[in-house]
């Protein structure tokens, strides 16, 4: 049986001050090699200032089939948005 190489998810901080953003994944035998590979693959054009790698197996995702029941309930809660409230124009920005 062929030994498989673990999969890692790669997150890059694009610029100073921003949070890390998922950019893709890669295979590597351990975390150090994963960081090195991520640097080689994902930052060749100066895309980032910092890299995080996370074993893909550690990521728990919501069920895509349950997207409706998960996210639809917030659609009708328009009172969570500022435009729901009537503020006269004379008051200006609030």
């Amino acid at each position, binding site marked *: 049986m062929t030994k498989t190489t673990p999969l890692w998810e790669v997150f890059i901080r694009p610029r100073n001050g921003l949070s890390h953003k998922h950019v893709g994944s890669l295979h590597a035998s351990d975390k150090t090699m994963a960081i090195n590979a991520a640097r080689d693959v994902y930052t060749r054009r100066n895309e980032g200032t910092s890299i995080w790698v996370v074993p893909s197996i550690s990521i728990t995702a919501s069920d895509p089939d349950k997207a409706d029941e998960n996210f639809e309930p917030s659609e009708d809660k328009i009172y969570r948005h500022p435009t*729901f*409230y009537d503020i006269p124009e004379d008051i200006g920005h*609030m």
Partner: protein
Amino acid sequence: MYSQGLINSDTQIEESQEFLDAFQARIDAEEKIEPNDVMPQAYKKMLVRQIAQHAHSEIVGMLPEGNWVTRAPSLRRKAALLAKVQDEGGHGLYLYSAAETLGVSREELTEQLVTGKAKFSSIFNYPTLSWADIGAIGWLVDGAAIMNQIPLCRCSYGPYARAMIRVCKEESFHQRQGYELMMSLAQGTEKQKQMAQDALNRWWWPSVMMFGPHDAESTHSDQSMRWKIKRFTNDDLRQKFINATVPQATFIDLKIPDKDLRWNDDKEGYDHGPIDWAEFWNVVKGNGPMARDRITARKKAWDEGEWVRDAAHAYAEKRRAEKIAAE
């Protein structure tokens, strides 16, 4: 566990002048400081203190408003108030998480709050006596909080700044719902208008005090400004708040309870009367009218939630054991 995985928080480094200067140079260049960067112990300490106080304030801040959720006069108002209180809970979470990136645990922070060791915003030690207080809190307390929080979106510590961006975005409706509520009372019956004025009378000065002591008396201000944790002084922010709020009161025909309040052409801002600092310090020291109730309520929620936390751990443990057995 994020913090423990990343931060070198236990690494003792020699804080030589060279190190401190290099750190200051990063700050001056508007570089954001991130959890696994080396930083002076005093910078970390100042941030933990401020972010934790901020987090505690969000959590304790749910109590005065939660007091009125079941008595909101309409479904519209109830939905708005519920959404606001939910937001405050979430904001407490974002802020606690930001503090945790500095190596302090949630359990420690909670412990500090329920034992009365930690401070939170003095404003939440006042009672909410009438429905109009909900309007006054949204309009004035959130209005003051926003003045404070907008510059914090540019704070030098990355996780705090990013948490504040999210908080400010979500809070944009909080002040509007409060002002809308005040406006409808102020334009209602004579009795409703009186209720609105009474709420303004009681919440005005505590709101003005939210910005903290005058600059000359503010102990941490200078260093905080140098490290770009704070971007404006207490008095600057207070002045901005007053300038923005006075016309809003005038517009709905309510009177700010300050007989010395008048427009000053030279500074293009309002002059205001003296602030009762004795009251402020008394409240900060934990003698506010609702101080004991707030801590007691928080401690009760924490203690009564213990079995839930234990049950969740036990359930997770059981699932793990089942999974191992199945493999």
